[in-house]
């Protein structure tokens, strides 16, 4: 890749959201903003190799996109004058009243992650409008046809327009709930990358985890005071730090207790730990931590020791206790039981796990956890049956390989 191509790639990564967000405010229309942003980047591809990279690529792209948008509106208005009028009227409106924080990219995130849109639409729209991923990239990421993904995004944009979903940062009162909606979208993207589902996909999708971290970093820069944003970023970084150690050369999932801790990414861990310490200080000063902060703290406990035998399991259990008070889900109870196994033994943990059967019978990790505890208790045939159930339900190729090996090693 030559210098100009690199500059365009960098500009796309750094400026796409800004260009789309600025144009959306100016023209009040996501379609126009998206098309004009794409036009501007196409123009950069054409012009920058000949004219050189402009000193301020962001400003060049925004100006070009603005001009492209106006061209487009003029062209389309020949077919439909009313359309033009509507656009011009909307564009002349004074800016929306300011919410808690004023940044167009933040407005864009809140619009794309609006609770009136279906979750899958929020994910697709966020990756397209804020992340700048192309339609084929998003379709590939979620294993759906390009046309299906295209329709999903088109429908979401049409609803935003028809129902007038506002382009605004929510008021302070609504902010925590709406931020948690944005975080849920980003976490879903990350998790789909981290434990990709589907028999024909790579077990870890770096493109998705990288994108989720990038967007969460952006949100962190825009909302530096928000504890849950910091918590989610820390959680992602501490998870991502372990990713090379998590899948073996033969494509098998490596559980935490067997991972080569020397292969963990020390830089990501240091950054994650810094964020967790920041939130611990805030908690000491009276701020109640939310679920992402607690999950990040659990990750920090695991990533603080070089040898799994040094893990402070009582701390892990205490954090899960704190988490269960916020989120009484059976999955939290299951993860707590896994830590309890290290502290009080696999028999105590198994009793706790068995109480969750009603709720988790269709969840592969429930059976995998049971299988492991039964194995440690020497109950081989029950363990084998549990591994079989887990293998029947699991969707990730690396995890299937790991479970198969564990089952076949049983005496």
């Amino acid at each position: 890749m030559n210098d100009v191509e690199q500059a365009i790639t960098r500009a796309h990564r750094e400026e796409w959201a800004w260009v789309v967000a600025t144009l959306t405010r100016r023209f009040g229309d996501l379609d126009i903003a998206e098309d004009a942003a794409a036009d501007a980047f196409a123009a950069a591809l054409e012009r920058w190799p000949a004219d050189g990279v402009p000193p301020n690529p962001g400003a060049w792209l925004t100006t070009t996109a603005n001009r492209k948008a106006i061209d487009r509106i003029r062209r389309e208005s020949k077919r439909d004058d009313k359309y033009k009028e509507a656009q011009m009227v909307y564009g002349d409106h004074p800016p929306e009243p300011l919410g808690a924080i004023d940044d167009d990219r933040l407005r864009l995130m809140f619009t794309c992650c609006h609770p009136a849109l279906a979750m899958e639409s929020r994910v697709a729209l966020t990756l397209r409008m804020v992340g700048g991923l192309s339609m084929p990239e998003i379709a590939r990421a979620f294993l759906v046809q390009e046309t299906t993904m295209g329709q999903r995004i088109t429908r979401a944009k049409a609803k935003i327009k028809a129902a007038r979903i506002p382009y605004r940062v929510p008021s302070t009162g609504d902010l925590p709930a709406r931020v948690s909606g944005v975080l849920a979208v980003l976490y879903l993207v990350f998790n789909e990358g981290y434990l990709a589902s589907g028999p024909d996909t790579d077990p870890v999708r770096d493109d998705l985890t990288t994108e989720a971290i990038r967007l969460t970093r952006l949100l962190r820069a825009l909302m530096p005071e928000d504890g849950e944003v910091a918590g989610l970023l820390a959680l992602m970084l501490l998870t991502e730090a372990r990713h090379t150690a998590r899948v073996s050369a033969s494509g098998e999932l490596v559980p935490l207790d067997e991972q080569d801790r020397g292969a963990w990414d020390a830089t990501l861990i240091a950054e994650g730990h810094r964020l967790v310490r920041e939130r611990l200080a805030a908690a000491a000063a009276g701020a109640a931590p939310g679920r992402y902060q607690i999950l990040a703290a659990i990750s920090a406990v695991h990533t603080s020791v070089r040898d799994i035998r040094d893990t402070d399991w009582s701390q892990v259990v205490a954090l899960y206790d704190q988490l269960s008070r916020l989120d009484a889900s059976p999955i939290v109870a299951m993860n707590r039981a896994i830590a309890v196994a290290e502290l009080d033994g696999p028999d105590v943990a198994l009793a706790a796990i068995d109480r969750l059967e009603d709720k988790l019978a269709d969840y592969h990790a429930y059976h995998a956890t049971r299988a492991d505890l039964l194995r440690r208790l020497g109950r081989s045939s029950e363990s084998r049956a549990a591994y079989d159930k887990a293998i029947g339900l699991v969707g990730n190729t690396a995890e299937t390989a790991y479970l198969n090996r564990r089952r076949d090693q049983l005496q």
Partner: protein
Amino acid sequence: MRYLVSVIDDKSNPGSTDRQPAISAFNERLIAEGHWVFAGGLADTDAATVIDNRGEQAMFSDGPFVESKEYLAGIWVWEAPDLDVALELATEASKVCDRKIEVRPFQ
């Protein structure tokens, strides 16, 4: 921006029948805050008649256009600057009416 706000009841699990005073108070507030355009409760779906005059002769049929467990029990038309405002009001309306609410924008 105008929104059609539908109150949806369920024949197999109807909402409580003592909501009228609360709904009246809520309507007063909608009027005071400039959101109220129109409101009305509807008679039972059995009282509906469907007319189809697309063919040679008008056809009348007894009952609603679609039979379902869930049905439209009443409507509002609200004026609101955007969907967030409409959804906030609808969230309250659902409690006030003890029923599900659908918010749908006019074109």
